[in-house]
């Protein structure tokens, strides 16, 4: 019987939701392959609550040391390499997150195991492991196979799987320390900082008028801001608008910005990268205006408009003035 590893992702003493999503998929794969599910938690002593993880895994290996209280790719990599050499898991799942993007590629080189990143599904086809991932900014899917290896590494996209427990597992807990003689990590955690505090809280808004790259230039933000005001809504935006310094970060919707839950989300010129769509999952009704008929946002929107957005903005202003 083989094993599947899930690397638990946690921050500030909380297990992140992506962990349960990975455990859900791992549970499914373990049933298919008659494998055991092992969750690996690296953290400070008693720092990470393990109850929910233990319900979803056959074995929990807690690696406890103050040096890994906060994520550290150097120490994670050395420890996981040892655990992988000892247990030989067929598959190790990690989050496709800022942490996972720092860890997984280096672990892949260290172990020699092939890596597929940002996967939205994991399949067994004719006894072979394959993954599905999105390419070309989400416009296409690809099915990817691996070079033959004793084990494989996969990073999982946040939101790709549900977080619910798939079945009851025995949750045997073992505790251990970091491997001996680890070199001092080259990167050191200093502090967390809040990136997005500001004068507007878009997460509480009932009506969001949201702008994306499609508005063309900074000067046009004012046109949409005026519309938001007249509609009694709040102005929000997608990532490129913040990257270009057209609006401050606290307006940003998405995984690296804020998760929002308005009754109505009115999106102008937003193509709908998955990071953005993940942020509007809780919106009541989504109305998207975008000239690109194939824009991914139309796959999640309730209503779509493929006209020039400025014509629609002007028409809305005229209608509101009546």
């Amino acid at each position: 019987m083989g094993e599947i590893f899930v690397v638990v992702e946690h921050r500030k003493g909380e297990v992140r939701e992506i962990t349960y999503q990975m455990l859900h998929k791992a549970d499914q794969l373990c049933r298919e392959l008659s494998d055991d599910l092992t969750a690996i938690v690296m953290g400070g002593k008693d720092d990470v609550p393990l109850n929910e993880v233990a319900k979803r895994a056959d074995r929990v290996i807690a690696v406890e040391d103050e040096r890994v209280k906060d994520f550290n790719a150097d120490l994670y990599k050395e420890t996981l390499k040892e655990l992988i050499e000892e247990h030989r898991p067929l598959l190790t799942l990690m989050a496709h997150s800022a942490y996972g993007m720092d860890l997984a590629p280096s672990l892949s080189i260290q172990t020699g195991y092939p890596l597929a990143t940002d996967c939205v599904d994991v399949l067994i086809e004719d006894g072979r492991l394959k993954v599905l991932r999105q390419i070309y900014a989400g416009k296409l899917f690809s099915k990817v196979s691996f070079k033959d290896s004793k084990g494989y590494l996969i990073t999982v996209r946040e939101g790709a799987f549900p977080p619910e427990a798939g079945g009851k597992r025995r949750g045997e807990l073992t505790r251990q320390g970091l491997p001996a003689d680890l070199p001092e990590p080259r990167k050191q955690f200093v502090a967390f900082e809040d990136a997005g505090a500001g004068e507007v809280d878009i997460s509480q808004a009932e009506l969001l008028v949201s702008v994306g790259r499609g508005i063309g230039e900074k000067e046009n933000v004012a046109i949409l801001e005026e519309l938001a005001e007249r509609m009694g809504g709040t102005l929000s935006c997608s990532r490129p608008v913040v990257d270009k310094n057209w609006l401050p970060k606290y307006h940003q919707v998405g995984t690296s910005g804020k998760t929002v839950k308005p009754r109505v989300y009115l999106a102008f010129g937003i193509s709908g990268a998955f990071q953005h769509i993940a942020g509007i999952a809780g919106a009541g009704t989504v109305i998207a205006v975008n000239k690109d008929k194939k824009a991914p946002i139309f796959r999640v929107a309730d209503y779509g408009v493929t006209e020039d957005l400025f014509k629609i903005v002007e028409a809305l202003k005229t209608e509101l003035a009546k």
Partner: protein
Amino acid sequence: MNIIVCVKRVPLTQEVDLEIDPKKNEVRKEMLAYAINEWDNYAVEEAVRLKEKFQGDVTAITIGDEDDEEVLRRCLAMGADRALRIDPGALDLDAFVISKILAEVIGNLEYDLILTGVQTDDMNNGAVGIMLAEHLGVAHAAVVIGIEPEANGVKLRLELEGGTDEVSTIKLPAVLSIQTGINEPRYVSIMGIRKAAKKELRVTPADALHLSPDDLSPRTRIEAVFFPPETAGAEIIDGDPATIAGRILRIIKEKGGRV
């Protein structure tokens, strides 16, 4: 501070109807327009800013064919001092092979920092930079949105999820994968590109490198590409702008909005 920045030319796919290649494992590229990968553009800007502040030089590297030299010329116009194109010939490239080729070339160069984009817009791997660091045996950090040199290394700001940043320190040399928004990349004019034509642009074929068949053997292979499965999707509102606007306002009212 000597900086190497790795860049890629990628097809622009926004507002484009992609078509799948007859081989079913790639898109048809002949009709597509290309540009520098957006993340890489920020990485180049960051490299040039660091050079302007702390001296040193910037080398831009790409793996690609002759057409891809246009992104290197753009890097030179932005302020890189020299450029290097590694011609992969007919090699099959995945993130692993790309990182191996880069490591073989960069291993012979002098550097304090290597910058890459977090990911590319086409293949979306987000793995090459950190794999490269591991081959070279140097420190690494991902999703960097701030770089501040200090006495013993560099202070970094990293973008985590959910509006939280991490501040950390890292020893040099290091590979950093750069996130969009870290700076405002400068405008590049045709004149600027012309002026930069005098700068050095060297070409090395990948088969001249000392790489083994295993180094050049992809770890992953795209078997097939396909369009996302059809969903119910949005109900498209048609009509003239006034009709559409009227409908949008009615929908908002129905959903309990006060307009």
